[in-house]
């Protein structure tokens, strides 16, 4: 059975209804375990003190913010190539979630940065890139809202997502070129030297997994809502008496 079978809205809804309870439950468990372990079960950092613990919100939110955009890019490509409605609607559904996560990332970063760097905001490459990502989310959502015909909206937002991704990547390198940063290196990387120590690492991975599941559950739920809206629209268009 091919994965494209789930491109059918009805089959997708059926599968989504089965998966969603597990996704919500696992997300709740992951986030609570990750946050509680992270906040109460890890020692204070010898330099950063207790402020380091905001990492358990900050990093997962940033992770979702970036990956939501990547997911939207893939979904847009699927829509443009294979014209599967579920794909386009999933991209639409993911955008506000990504936007909120970007805002959470920016705010928790500011709260973390204040005691550490002595400033709420600095034009550091990572911070600036996130601000630009925030603008891209805004434009993407605004374009979805502005176009009346839903298929045209899906087409145009997909093109915007594709072109926007290229420009977002260019902006990332332009910003690196433009400013040297304050931000620490990646919290998670394959390079052992750069990685944060194990005590912080386990709860962080659990929190990230929890946030990812939360994202999955939210996107499934919101995609379902969008499908219902389109279904109502398709049905009512066929109910209208012919002039």
């Amino acid at each position, binding site marked *: 059975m091919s994965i494209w079978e789930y491109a059918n809205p009805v089959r997708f809804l059926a599968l989504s209804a089965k998966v969603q309870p597990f996704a919500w439950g696992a997300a709740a468990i992951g986030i609570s375990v990750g946050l509680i372990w992270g906040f109460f079960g890890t020692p204070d950092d010898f330099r950063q003190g207790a402020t380091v613990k905001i990492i358990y919100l900050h990093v997962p939110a940033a992770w979702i913010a970036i990956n939501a955009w990547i997911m939207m890019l893939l979904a847009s490509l699927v829509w443009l190539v294979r014209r599967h409605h579920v794909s386009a609607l999933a991209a639409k559904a993911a955008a506000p979630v990504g936007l909120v996560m970007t805002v959470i990332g920016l705010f928790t970063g500011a709260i973390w940065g204040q005691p550490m760097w002595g400033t709420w905001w600095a034009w550091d490459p990572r911070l600036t890139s996130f601000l630009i990502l925030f603008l891209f989310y805004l434009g993407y959502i605004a374009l979805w809202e502005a176009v009346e015909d839903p*298929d045209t909206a899906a087409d145009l937002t997909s093109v915007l997502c594709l072109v926007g991704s290229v420009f977002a990547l260019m902006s990332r390198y332009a910003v690196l070129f433009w400013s040297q940063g304050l931000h620490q290196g990646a919290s998670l990387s394959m390079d052992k030297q750069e990685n944060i120590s194990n005590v912080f690492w386990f709860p962080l991975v659990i929190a990230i997994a929890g946030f990812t599941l939360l994202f999955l559950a939210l996107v499934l739920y919101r995609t379902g809502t969008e499908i219902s809206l389109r279904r109502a629209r398709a*049905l009512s268009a*066929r109910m209208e008496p*012919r002039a």
Partner: protein
Amino acid sequence: MTLTLVNVAVARGGVPVLGGVAFTLRAGEAMILRGPNGAGKTTLLRTIAGLQLPLSGTIDGAADRIAYGGHADGLKGMLSVAENLSFWARVYGHSDIEPALATYALGPLRSRLAGTLSAGQKRRAGLARLMVTGRPIWILDEPTVSLDSHAVALFADAVRAHLGMGGMALMATHIDLGIDAHLCDICGWAAAPQELLGASDEAFL
């Protein structure tokens, strides 16, 4: 040289309006589409012109041979009539606009700015645009709107001359132009709303 539609279905706003549209138009023939508002005349004409895709079916002989005249004239108010027509002629690789000006009695208006023309004069300039394209198939959506009876006669003459030279014309109009044309009531092709013809939103039903 023919224009052939086979089993064409078209949609407006994602909902099928016409299905099973099939006809053949040969060189020198004209067809007039009839049907009430909302029946799908404009949608069908735009589809044949290639501005939107049919839900299903094939359209043969239309690509690169169509001159489309829609509700708007495609004229720039800040350019003169002659400048407007020359521009369109050059886009289609021609340069001679004199026959078109003569056919629609636009000679005296040639250096007037299109923005200062009356609605009927503007329409005549818009119809003259079809002649300068040199394309054999005219697709016309309500071409006689705001034309007086004299201008309608000019238009009918132009269509007759075009057909005489082996051209074709497909138009939606309710006025009797006095030209020899197939009358075609598109209501016969009206699609039942519940019919599945490949509309984009059928996946949601």
